[in-house]
């Protein structure tokens, strides 16, 4: 596996690192840094996108849906 293939694969499925990818990581500082950076980005992405949901949202949606029956 080369760096280009590793980065493409890891970017599309960051939670899955197969054996081939692990072997590549052992010998590639560049891709190790790439993984660390992506981890940081993913963590921030998650916290950025997970905005608070209004407490009564589900109940409101159920009432609205029931009202249209």
């Amino acid at each position, binding site marked *: 596996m080369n760096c280009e293939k590793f*980065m*493409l*694969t890891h*970017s*599309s*499925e*960051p939670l899955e690192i197969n054996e081939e990818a692990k072997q590549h990581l052992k010998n590639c500082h560049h891709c190790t840094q*790439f993984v660390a*950076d*992506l981890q*940081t*980005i*993913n963590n*921030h*992405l*998650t*916290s*950025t*996108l*997970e*905005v*608070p*949901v*209004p407490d009564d*949202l*589900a109940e*409101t*949606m*159920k009432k*609205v*849906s*029931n009202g*249209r*029956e």
Partner: protein
Amino acid sequence: MSEKKKEFSKEFSELVTQYSGLLYRYAFWLTGKNESAQDVVQETFLRAWQSFGSLKKKESAKSWLITILRHENARRFAKKQLQRVDLEVENLEGVNTEEDNRAEAFWLRHAIDHMSDTYSEPLVLQVLCGFTCNEIADILNITPEAVMTRLYRARKQLREQLSSKRSQPTNRGMS
């Protein structure tokens, strides 16, 4: 109400309980506003209720709802599809407590907002909704290979901007 209809209604109610939060967050990302997000989610569930009988597999419910939400949002903002507005600042309160994390979270939101939808939407569908490449491909009606490429380019852009940001001097500690 007949038993069959009661069961139908119960199943839909469970769907609402399970996915309303996810749909709200996705809608919030699309619209950038609490009220608009709630409106889009409401329209989504109304539309979903009307065609609930067409949902063949419960396992497909999440992607089915997201697809409906995308259509509802596109319909609602016919000429401004997927165009987002700046995030309401108060909605990020409490997301992160550490100053550095909050600063990077704001920066990241800004970076995503200024990224082409072509790249940002697959990323949000993966990170927020947890979809696989194949599921994203179905939702966006593109090939899984195209999804992989877009996810790669999206993260590459963010990584480059992150590197650039980190190399910039900060004003911290200056009076």
